[in-house]
């Protein structure tokens, strides 16, 4: 074997090792979920037959159809609002100079570092007084607020990375700032925007504590909240809980896998000059 052959083999081995480390926990849960409901397991056991019946029964027992619909509605709204608000905000911070830009930007940054757990009690009181607890607004508005802080940070980095000549060229042709933004910059920024969309979708979908505090009504509960209730109700039933966990994770995993090529490329575009 040549030297580069050895190097290749080592590289493959390392890659394989880390892939296995990353995937094994997920594989174990999926495998566990393939056991019949109620089965008691010791370690990893191969099920007698690969069956999806546990997913089916967990879906029904946990009412995940409705929970997923709630989660989808909330996540989609947050993503839409964040995108619409952050692109112009990032553009402004990234390319224009206006009085107070720096302090306002750092204030936005503060939104990313303050522990969310300590914001929830004041938030609850605000929403309670507005009569908005137990509505989708109680989830959509605060999460949009938080996402804006990240989204602006992210889009600002992107707009700063775009060569100024591009915008200048368009402006020479007589385009307004607004037009430059939507016709010239947004199209090149698709990967960065997509990445932001996917990240915000993921975070909103996965959020638990805010939903726990704001939502008590069954009809507005989100999927992670439903999983928590499911776990306490059927906790002795490891296969069912695993199946429910897989179900709750499936949409984000799907979105991630479908968009991963662009998403990972965008990670870079957005973070170059963080």
């Amino acid at each position, binding site marked *: 074997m040549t030297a580069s052959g050895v190097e290749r083999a080592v590289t493959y081995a390392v890659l394989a090792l880390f892939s296995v480390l990353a995937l094994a926990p997920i594989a174990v849960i999926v495998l566990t979920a393939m056991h019949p409901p109620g089965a008691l397991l010791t370690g990893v056991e191969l099920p007698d037959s690969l069956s999806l019946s546990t997913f089916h029964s967990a879906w029904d027992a946990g009412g995940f159809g409705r929970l997923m619909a709630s989660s989808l509605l909330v996540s989609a709204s947050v993503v839409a609002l964040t995108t619409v608000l952050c692109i112009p905000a990032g553009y402004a911070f990234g390319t224009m100079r206006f009085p107070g830009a720096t*302090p306002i930007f750092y204030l936005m940054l*503060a939104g990313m570092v303050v522990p969310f757990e300590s914001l929830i009690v004041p938030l609850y009181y605000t929403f*309670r007084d507005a*009569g908005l607890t137990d509505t989708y607004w109680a989830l959509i508005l605060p999460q949009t607020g938080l996402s804006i802080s990240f989204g602006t940070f992210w889009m600002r980095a992107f707009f700063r990375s775009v060569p100024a000549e591009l915008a200048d060229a368009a402006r020479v042709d007589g385009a307004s700032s607004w037009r430059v933004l939507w016709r010239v910059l947004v199209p090149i920024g698709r990967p960065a925007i997509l990445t932001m969309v996917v990240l915000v979708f993921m975070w909103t979908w996965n959020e638990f504590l805010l939903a726990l505090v704001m939502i*008590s009504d069954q009809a507005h509960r989100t999927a992670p909240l439903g999983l928590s*209730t499911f776990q306490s*109700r059927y*906790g002795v039933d490891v296969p069912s809980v695993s199946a429910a966990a897989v179900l709750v994770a499936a949409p984000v995993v799907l979105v991630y896998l479908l968009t991963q090529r662009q998403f990972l490329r965008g990670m870079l575009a957005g973070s170059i000059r963080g």
Partner: protein
Amino acid sequence: MMHLLRTRLRLTLLLLLCAAVCGCGTPGSSGGAVTARSGPVSTGFDTGEKVSLTMWDDETSPGDSKAQDQLIHEFEQRYPNVTVHRVVKSFDDYMSTIKLAASSSNAPDVFQGNEGYAVDQALIKAGLILPLDGQAAAYGWDTRFGNPLTLDPLRWSADGATWGSGTLWGVAQKAEVLGVFYDKDVMSRLGLRPPRTFAQFEQTLAKAKAAGVPPVMVGGLDRWPLGHVFMVLQALFEKPSAVSAWAFGHPGASFDTPGTRKAAEVFAQWGAKGYFENGFNGVSQQTAAARFAKGEGLYFITGPWENQTFAGPLGNRVGFFPMPGTGSAPSAATGSLSLPYHISSRTPHPEVAAALIDYLTGQHAAKLLIENGDLPAADPGSAALDGGSSLAAIARTWRQKSRAGLLVPYLDWATASMGDTLFGGLQQLSQGATTPAQFTAAVQKDWESAHS
């Protein structure tokens, strides 16, 4: 760097400004006082008016949850003008949200609290729940639950300052008493018989351990399960009156006493001798219960709420006994009514709420709970409680201990933070990381800082 510093300074100033502009007053000051409804309370209400009630509970186990749904359905049939919306959350989720929900303008009309300083006292002090003395007299709740002493943990002074006597603030659906579940097959396989004294009990632990059977199954990862094991021991070695005084926060009570230290020593020894299942602090209680229900252990120390988890798969193979005492006198046991149902002071329909609570805690509900393998607070005199089942044994234990005044309260009631202090302390004690004396001193320190 300087530039950044300045930015941060400005940021701080801006924040302060913001706070000033928001002009927040004293937080929580909007909380309303109890609208005193004086005069006699009757059991009837207007059955023509359309009424919609929201009720919160934490009955997540499949059997109990189904029973609850059925009871509500029956109640709605009986009073067609009433609709009840039920909200269910797991215990942890429930306890972290109930106070916030109760303070909201659309607070649930009927909801469960929790005995002690963390929840019930806060609810009373904030004027969020109604006193129920009138309803208790009208519906006969005073006498429904056996020994009237069992209602003491639901009584507080009118201002919520002192606990254990005074006004009644809630009633409960179920009864709880901690004891020992055992697997009869495992026991006979080991050549053992149910112990009659504590010394015999410890011998059975040693024999099981020697035979490679986990003596006591317990899920320490969830923290509180170890607390229940310890409480069962403390009830043997400490005077019941001393345990009660301490849990109720009476002045001068102490955890740092010879009896409690002795219980802590026994607990630590069990840990050191490996009487708890292998790796118990990394096992969830649900996993531990599932393994016991599969026949993997000899004992499981807990209360009636797990009965169905075991009796479902094991049937008559599972038995129950109260922890046998150290002497000839009958021993005390930890037990109380379950989480109390309260009526919100914000509800426009307190009479309907009271009727609902009455239905949920009455004789009919009790029979339904028994069918689901759980122990009701009201004693329906059901034949199902006379046989040789584990549930019958639990019911006998409850009757004996409550009638004889031998029930002691849960220790985590003692202060708002006692759950963390006590259960975390036991996780350490069980691994030999602290000594029994350090443990009792640390717990007492928490108690003193709360009750000074």
